[in-house]
């Protein structure tokens, strides 16, 4: 019996025990231990630490070359799939664009139920395609955020609506694409909409009723600390700071980590002189009341649309002879950061992709900006590109290799500054950019030493990818390409061990699960979810 089989067996026993004792399908205690329950995939990033790592090793270096399609599921309405499915006890919960949730049989791929909210035809989605990145589950409820800015709780067994609340006013440009994060008794969401000049916030709702527990704005109001970083005008009121990707959580420190997006208008800072706290930052929050315990800002006074919402990986390592609790992020601005997650202290920051805007970071992690990098009327070429060296797609961290795996986008953009006129629910961006793409751009899957950011290996991609990565105890890293390749790399060396062509840009987020002693790997590309097994 392999370790994995033991884990599966123990997991099954635990599950049976839980069903008998608690009744609820996925109690909070089960989410806390998600990583030791690898036959299921219980949270967006696989665990509160956001490792996107599977402890399953049934598919491994030795046998991955025999991987084959087990089943496929085609979504109901054409759109980009940027989702990470969840798997709970034989059922997969898949979100489809724009805000549909479908439950599937993990063995056969046959749908069990599907739910689509009534999205008004004049829904405002400015700043991204109308996508959905996943659902959350807690007890017997499945939670989905929608592009018309609702948060909806569904009965996990039938897809029936238990409650449906409005998070933000879509007429103002608020919308939701992220997977909610379920904590003890609460479900936490953030919002998209900085491209329409929203004022960003993070919300926690009572998981059973949908009643608002707390709201923390990412832009301080007059009188609050940080307000002085917005100049003397009214720029703060339309300052952006979206919160559009799922955060991470440390139950021991009792800190919730949520990152924030760009200030608005994106490419024109005339009406927001200053650092623009807390945009492009990570906030450490007390999950009981939403109070900010510490913050760290990656890109002060951003004029390149380098949101800092990217997934934050929590891990532990020895630094200076003592064990530290760390938080790492490969930021859209081209730097890889490591912070002490108890205090927010900056420890390391090094480029992981080509960047031409900063002469490095100072001792506190603040960028040392070069001159002549601001957007202009005639255009200014800067690396990384307008969509960043990274973006919403997930990195992976393997506790086995201690490596942080990240797809990097090597591309420049000619950045333009333009006028910005605020009109609720319309684009408030103040410029934009033209990609330097095609044969002049590329991408790579990079393995970084998680503590130092030093690159151990890279696997080149033809074009700047949008691929999320999954690492596994089988010594593998799964990823994809814009050209439709899906592949497995050796987690230690980056050597390709298996690949297949699945016919559409790989924008889905890979995950793994097991059932009946068999491991599966799921990935969405084009308009289809593909599930592979041996």
């Amino acid at each position, binding site marked *: 019996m392999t370790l994995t089989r033991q884990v599966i067996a123990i997991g099954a026993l635990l599950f049976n025990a839980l069903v008998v004792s608690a009744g609820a399908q996925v109690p909070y205690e089960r989410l806390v231990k998600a990583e030791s329950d690898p036959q299921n995939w219980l949270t967006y990033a696989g665990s509160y630490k956001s490792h996107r790592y599977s402890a399953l090793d049934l598919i491994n270096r030795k046998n991955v070359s025999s991987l084959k399609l087990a089943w496929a599921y085609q979504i109901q309405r054409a759109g980009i799939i940027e989702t990470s499915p969840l798997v709970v006890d034989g059922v997969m919960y898949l979100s489809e664009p724009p805000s549909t949730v479908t439950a599937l049989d993990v063995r056969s791929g046959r749908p069990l139920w599907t739910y689509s909210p009534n999205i008004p035809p004049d829904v405002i989605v400015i700043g991204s395609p109308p996508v959905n990145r996943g659902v959350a589950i807690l007890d017997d409820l499945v939670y989905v955020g929608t592009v018309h800015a609702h948060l909806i709780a569904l009965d996990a067994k039938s897809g029936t609506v238990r409650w449906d609340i409005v998070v933000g006013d879509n007429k103002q440009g608020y919308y939701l694409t992220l997977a909610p994060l379920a904590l003890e008794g609460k479900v936490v969401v953030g919002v998209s909409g900085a491209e329409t000049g929203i004022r960003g916030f993070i919300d926690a709702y009572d998981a059973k009723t949908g009643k608002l527990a707390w709201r923390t704005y990412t832009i301080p109001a007059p009188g609050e600390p940080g307000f002085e970083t917005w100049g003397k005008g009214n720029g703060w009121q339309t300052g952006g700071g979206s919160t559009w990707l799922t955060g991470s959580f440390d139950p021991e420190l009792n800190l919730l980590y949520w990152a924030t997006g760009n200030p608005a208008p994106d490419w024109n800072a005339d009406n927001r002189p200053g650092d623009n706290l807390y945009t492009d930052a990570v906030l450490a929050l007390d999950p009981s009341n939403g109070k900010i315990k510490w913050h760290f800002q990656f890109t002060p006074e951003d004029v390149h649309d380098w949101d800092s919402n990217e997934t934050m990986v929590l891990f532990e390592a020895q630094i200076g002879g003592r064990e530290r609790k760390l938080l790492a992020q490969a930021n859209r601005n081209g730097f890889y950061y490591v912070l002490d997650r108890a205090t927010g202290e900056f420890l390391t920051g090094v480029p992981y992709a080509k960047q031409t805007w900063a002469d490095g970071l100072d001792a506190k992690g603040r960028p040392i900006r070069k001159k002549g990098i601001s957007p202009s*009327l*005639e255009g200014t070429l800067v690396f990384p590109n307008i969509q960043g060296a990274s973006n919403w797609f997930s990195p992976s961290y393997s506790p086995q290799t201690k490596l942080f795996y990240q797809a990097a986008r090597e591309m420049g953009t000619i950045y333009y500054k*333009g*006028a910005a*006129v605020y009109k609720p629910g319309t684009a408030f961006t103040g410029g934009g950019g033209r*990609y330097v793409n095609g044969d002049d751009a590329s991408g790579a899957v990079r393995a970084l030493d998680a503590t130092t950011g030093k690159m151990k290996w890279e696997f080149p991609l033809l074009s700047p990818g949008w691929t999320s990565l999954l690492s596994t105890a089988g010594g593998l890293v799964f990823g994809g390409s814009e*050209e439709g390749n899906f592949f497995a790399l050796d987690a230690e060396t980056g050597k390709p061990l298996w690949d297949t062509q699945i016919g559409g840009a790989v924008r889905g987020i890979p995950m793994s699960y097991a059932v009946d002693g068999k491991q599966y790997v799921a990935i969405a590309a084009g308009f289809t979810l593909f599930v592979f097994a041996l």
Partner: protein
Amino acid sequence: MRIALLSLALVMTLPALAAAQSAGDVAEGKKLFGGLCVTCHGFDGAGGAGPPLNRPKLLSAPDDASLRNIIAEGIPNRGMPRVRRVTDEEMRHLMAYVRSIGKSARAAVPGDAVRGGQIYGKLGCAACHIINGSGGSLGPELTNIGWIRGPDYLRQSVLEPAARLPQGNLPIPARGYNEYLPVTVVLRDGAEVRGIRLNEDVFTIQIRDTTGKFHSVRKADAAVVRKEIGASLMPSFANRLAAGEIDDLVAYLSRLGGAL
């Protein structure tokens, strides 16, 4: 009486005001155009890798609604991106400028198009280019080339074909990638294939060789995959044509598709 006078004053000032706004719009639009559009559409909209805009009628933007839509959204999967979002005012400026170019007098394309057509035939261009259904398919189709390229770009293509390969005219390969890019592949057994890249992904490359034969290559099976960035399979005609003949050929190409 006061009312009548006021009305008269309004009648007199309104057209003047509109004209002044419009001149200002054109000037502001020219500044925006200089940053956002000039790289492809050329200075004063004379064309380049993108279509000339200095003509009374634009193929894809015959009316203001379609022009606004193209500036706002680009032309998906073709060469024209939405470079950036613009405000309503910026849109008004850009549209005013683009329409003003269409009304301005165009520099005449020198040369004799009829003679240019004969030179096209003599040089054997049809071996690689299709016009109105006839010709070979190694190079780009030229049926409507007069609409989609400016005379300067066409001249450069004849003299230095490798200087700028087309991009964004074909849905495959994806926008931004060089079309008709020469590639050389040396297989492990020493066999060499040279042709144009049809498509590529992380693990494979698809090639049409100079005889028109199709090759599918898995990169791991090749000893060398060389993408010849900066090269073209089309020879330069700089030393084979007199200056007047080049003018004639460019005049012929510029009229293709009924563009002039």
